[in-house]
């Protein structure tokens, strides 16, 4: 048994990395989604809309830019799966959840910022996504996705 590991160390190291990547990645993702869902529920009362103007300027007491950004990295297993997808084509499922998490986390952070400013709503909301480390499929390269959410936080006059 020991000899098998010695002679096929590349295979063994690869399998270990895959398992580590899968387990740690799955745990991190599960936790993150639990946190995202909890906070989304908490901040559901703060509207985020894409319209550019509020109904009337006289309603606005204060306005300002709010931003939230999140960077989420791939793990070894996800990269392996995406590499295989590179050969066969099809939906890269393993990356879908990464982008989804990054977007939702970015929106949450933006909302958090708006709450800190006591804003009543966020208008002109925009979302950008960019890749960090575009050669992520290459060995020893790090790949992550960044989502940036921004908009105008608006506080309304009372009454």
């Amino acid at each position, binding site marked *: *048994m020991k*000899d*098998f590991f*010695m*002679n*096929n160390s*590349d*295979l063994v190291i690869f399998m270990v990395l895959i398992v580590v990547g*899968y387990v740690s990645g799955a745990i991190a993702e599960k936790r993150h989604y639990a946190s995202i869902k909890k906070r*989304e*529920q908490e901040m*559901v*009362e703060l*509207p985020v809309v894409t319209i550019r103007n509020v109904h009337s300027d006289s309603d606005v007491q204060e306005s300002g830019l709010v931003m939230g950004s999140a960077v989420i990295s791939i793990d070894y*297993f*996800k990269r*392996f*799966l995406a*590499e*295989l*997808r*590179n*050969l*066969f*084509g099809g*939906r890269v*499922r*393993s990356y*879908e*959840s990464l*982008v*989804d998490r990054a*977007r939702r986390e970015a929106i949450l952070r933006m909302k958090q910022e708006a709450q800190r400013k006591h804003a009543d*709503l966020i208008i002109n909301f925009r979302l950008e996504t960019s890749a960090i480390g575009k*050669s992520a*499929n*290459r*060995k020893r390269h790090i790949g992550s996705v960044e989502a940036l959410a921004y908009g105008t936080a608006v506080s309304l006059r009372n009454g």
Partner: protein
Amino acid sequence: MKFTAKLADGDVNISKGNPLKEAAWLVGGLITILALLYIGLGFVAGLVAMHLPVKAEVWIGRKISAGFQDRSNHYLQQHLDGLIGALPADSPLHAYTFRIFLDESEKVNAFALPGGSIVVFKGLLQTVGSENELDMVLAHELGHFAHRDHLQAMGRSLLVVVGSWLLPGDQSSDILPWIMGKLERRYSQKQEAAADSWGLDLLNRRYGHVGGATDFFKRLAGNGKTHLAYFLATHPHPEDRLHRLETLIRQNGYAVRETIPLKKGWIEKRAE
């Protein structure tokens, strides 16, 4: 317009399904495709290897073995010539001019290069106990020439490289050559076994008996490595090689007589 605070329903942006299952499907598909490709390419490479003229092989070999040219050894050359002399008159190996080179490293190994060059490591010479045992190793290498194994392996690896260029989306990946390498090793075990039996036959022609043929593998088998360790190795387990040789010796009724001990101190003697 009234705003009603509400969360979006469901995770529409994430595909459902178990990633492990997806990985299993993709890996399985990849291995199947590669295996088919490998068999196909192997067939083509085999055809080319079988029909490549010796002249072309010598030309390739000269490029590869250039580094060894000054390491010839008179004593080893004599051994090799003795074996060549024992070849049947119609052997295709007579088209080659065989040369043997000694490498100073301590590895217990020997290998064949295209074009008729054999490289023997000093470690191997220090391990073998008799002239017959040494000749068995040399005959095994000659067996590789007879089956044109090195050309086949070269041809296949060349085709694998070309094949991995052609596959789309794989410029960055090295999974492909890696899996191919593993397949190659299983294949090469077969070649080693074939070279063993070919070598045994030549040893019998050279000495009239096959004494010492199994000594080398007995020595290797004594290192205590398990069979599992050899599953993906280039050579079969020495015990398996030993058993195969013993079976062959019984089947062909080869005689096993006394071996000729090696002359001491000759390794240092160099050819002028």
